[in-house]
């Protein structure tokens, strides 16, 4: 499941996620990649151990009188959310994404954005945006530049970005000043999760005109 992943998350993203400081859209990419990659899961959990060490060292603040009894009463009311295992063998979308879509890839509501590419914008906090992209075999994702950070995680199929190949589980971390042109491989359609903290700027004329309408 995880042996073929060659493009991983960097330490800054894993640490920011461990510390709870990533915008929701980026956190969704991190949680999805970690679901598919044991290496990054181990790195993430080591950054969480830093949080544990800091918690242990932190100056204590005394709890209110009767707080233990209040907590026991809280426990008596049962768990806030049902505790259900979120594992499904053979799913295209890892659990964190299924939570947003409401099912696996067959439950995604796609909208065409031109050149055969389809997308589904996911509901996240507005400090960054996340969408699923469905790219036909051999098709290019329209040209775009960045004003911020863009993460692209492959869930099905593969794309090439320059000389690099990105397959299932691989994550492409692109930052400012990168002008890149990912092209889907021939074979099955490429499905990926893309998150950005700046609106994408498409350099092709038509897609740019469409931008305000499709929230590309």
């Amino acid at each position, binding site marked *: 499941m995880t042996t073929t992943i060659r493009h991983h998350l960097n330490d800054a993203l894993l640490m920011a996620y461990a510390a709870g400081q990533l915008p929701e859209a980026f956190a969704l990419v991190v*949680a999805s990649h970690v679901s598919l990659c044991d290496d990054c899961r181990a790195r993430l959990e080591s950054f969480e151990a830093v949080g544990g060490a800091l918690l242990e060292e932190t100056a204590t603040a005394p709890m209110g009188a009767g707080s233990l009894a209040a907590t026991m009463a809280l426990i008596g009311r049962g768990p806030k959310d049902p505790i259900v295992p979120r594992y499904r063998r053979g799913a295209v979308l890892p659990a964190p994404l299924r939570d947003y879509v409401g099912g696996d890839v067959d439950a995604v509501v796609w909208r065409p954005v031109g050149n055969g590419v389809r997308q589904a914008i996911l509901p996240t906090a507005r400090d960054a945006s996340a969408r699923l992209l469905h790219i036909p075999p051999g098709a290019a994702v329209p040209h775009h530049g960045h004003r911020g950070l863009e993460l692209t995680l492959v869930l099905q199929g593969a794309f090439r970005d320059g000389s690099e190949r990105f397959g299932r589980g691989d994550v492409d971390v692109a930052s400012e000043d990168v002008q890149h042109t990912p092209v889907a491989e021939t074979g099955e359609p490429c499905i990926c999760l893309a998150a950005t903290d700046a609106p994408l700027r498409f350099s092709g004329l038509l897609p740019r005109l469409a931008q305000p309408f499709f929230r590309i």
Partner: protein
Amino acid sequence: MGSAEPEGTDWVAAVAAVRDRRDAAAFAALFRHFAPRIKGFLMKSGTAETTAEEVAQEVMATLWHKAHLFDPARASVATWIFTIARNRRIDAIRRARRPEPEELPWGPEAEPDQEEALAMQQETQRLGEAIARLPEKQKDLIERAYFGDLSHTEIAAATGLPLGTIKSRIRLALERLRHQMG
């Protein structure tokens, strides 16, 4: 650390007692040690006292309900509680959803290897000591990252940490679990 209370596997045993017997005394001991730390941590992250008190209670209640999900071969009790508190903070204070990775299909073992659990707890303690020994400037940067004073783009400067050993240990625990279930 720096407190008179027992450290390490005692907390692992306390969580197991809550899981297996709904042991109220073990829970009370966990509560006395960790609730004031969660509250302190949240207040240091800029949370008002009443909210911090509430969230600390909710975190401890979650510990009770999710005790069966704790894997001492992969995390110390403090680390596990930190992750619960972090998620509750995002949920309750930032009012955003917190995407969480898919659980491993095999889950924690019913009876994790005692030695491995002990080694993991000690490793986290050593990590704490290593952080305490860092130059003041770097330590401060790490604290600010975890207390929410750094944006995700500023955090890159805080990543140079001695995590090699703990990461290898977690990686081995993941591999061993996968192998057993394979």
